[in-house]
């Protein structure tokens, strides 16, 4: 096990608001690492900084030893980090299959010139992208929706599609931002099983979630943050009973 993702004393302020304050987070490869905390704790901001959508105000973010703090999102993605979005950012006018094909963007070739003139290399590559994308749809159980427009999928399926699309990039680190939000019990347990299967493919998972049952059942490691600071970390059972965690969630006694 090696350190895959690391934030060193990373802070992100918005004017006077300290969304994240000097956070030291270490994610080892091969694990399912969850980050939990009350609303407004800074979890989505953490994802936004790591994926490059926002720069950190101070501190560093390292992926596999290299500094990624100031890189643009597409460069960070090229290093092997992808993410899903809490509020779903699907390409709603494109089909399910096309969404995953876009997910494969980093793993495929074909620029303006080759595409415009439909060179043979592009023919073959299109075929490969299509078939790998279908494999991913089968892996996530969406294959019968392949030609459906993404915007018309049932909500639970849309959440799975976000994940399927991120898998197209063959990431080393997959960051899931509240993937279970709005899902019913059965969908949540399907999700739990899917996450497990993803981990079995050697993809490290960083999970932000509010659903405690899900978090406790699948996580190898749990980090708790509150008001931008780490307040506890460890095994799910240890964290569950930590005094500081209870205080953060339930308020002062």
């Amino acid at each position, binding site marked *: 096990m090696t350190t895959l993702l690391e934030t060193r004393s990373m802070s992100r302020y918005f004017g006077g608001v300290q969304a994240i304050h000097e956070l030291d987070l270490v994610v080892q490869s091969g694990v399912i690492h969850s980050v939990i905390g009350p609303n407004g704790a800074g979890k989505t901001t953490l994802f936004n900084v790591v994926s490059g959508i926002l720069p950190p105000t101070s501190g560093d973010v390292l992926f596999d030893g290299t500094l990624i703090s100031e890189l*643009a999102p597409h460069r960070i993605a090229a290093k092997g980090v992808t993410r899903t979005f809490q509020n779903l950012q699907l*390409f709603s*006018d494109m089909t399910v299959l096309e969404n995953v094909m876009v997910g494969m963007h980093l793993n495929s070739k074909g620029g303006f010139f080759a595409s415009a003139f439909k060179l043979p290399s592009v023919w073959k590559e299109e075929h490969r992208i299509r078939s790998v994308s279908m494999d991913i749809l089968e892996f996530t159980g969406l294959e019968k929706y392949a030609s459906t427009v993404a915007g018309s999928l049932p909500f639970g399926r849309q959440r799975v599609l976000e994940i399927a699309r991120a898998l197209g990039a063959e990431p080393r680190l997959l960051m899931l931002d509240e993937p279970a939000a709005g899902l019913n019990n059965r969908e949540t347990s399907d999700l739990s099983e899917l996450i497990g299967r993803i981990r079995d493919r050697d993809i490290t998972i960083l999970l932000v979630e509010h659903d405690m049952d899900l978090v406790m059942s699948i996580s190898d490691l749990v980090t708790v943050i509150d008001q931008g600071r780490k307040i506890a970390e460890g095994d799910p059972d240890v964290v569950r009973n930590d005094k500081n965690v209870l205080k953060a969630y339930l308020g002062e006694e």
Partner: protein
Amino acid sequence: MKTLLWFRNPYMGFMLFSVLIMGLPLVITNQYHLGVLVIIAIHSIIVLGLDLLMGYTGQISLGHASFFGLGAYITGVLSAHWQWPPLAGLAVSLPVVAVIAWLIGMPTLKLHGHYLAMATLGFGIIVFIIFNELGPLTGGPSGLTGIEPMNIFGMTFDSDLEWYFLSMIFLLAVLLLSINVVRSRVGRALRAIHGSEVASGVLGVNIARYKVGIFVLSAMYAALAGWLYAHYITFISPSSFTFMFSVKLVTMVVIGSLGSLWGAIFGAALLTSMPEFLYVFHNYETLVFGSILIVVMIFMPMGLLRGIEDLIAWSWHAARRRLSSDGGEELS
């Protein structure tokens, strides 16, 4: 950007369209009409590029007349002063315009907002002034004469009928190229950017590069059209490459619907032929164009053609609902 009507497979539509185009001269034999069709083809080439730009990146170029003009003047000057063959003129103008467009696009498309519109506006005016001022080279405001007629590997094109086929072949080629781009990985990346810029970024799409790429492509289309124009009319003057023409091009896109290739041709055809057939239109041109832009943008922000399609689709569904609730018989 998906047109409801017609073809699942755009290549089918392309084949049909090609047959239609090639067969049209059997029906239209009037030389003047053929000449108008040549200009329509030339304008359509520009509008196809501009349509891709506006439809897929949401950015607008207010200076595309200048790329059209650069394509015309580069080949025109080389031809009139140094008797370069037309193809050589094209071989120079395409890369030159591509580089210029890249230089404009790179810094401006990295930023969010209206920057490309402003930069192309400014650039268009600068180029127009240059066309007017570089008298010895460009002929100044009175224009450049003495451009050689089209000559490709010895084939000359003199009659309007020959020009009809030449210009239509180029239009079909550009259309085919555009269909290829739209249906490729590049097209998907562009549609993804349009769907959710932030998601496409974290999936590895280099957003700036694709936006710049489409902008450069659209500029090259315009330059190609300019090349055709110069060797067709064999006389060019700055008054054909004004800010007003850039606005007209945008109007053609708006009529045709943003992102729709067929719409681009439709918009170009409509707005090019209208002034030809309604002479009295000339005085009212600016007022009418302006009003079209306002009205269409308010009520049909995706463009006129798309707005009409949506209207048809809506009334079709409304009719179906009424029929099925009346008799209970399901229409398939």
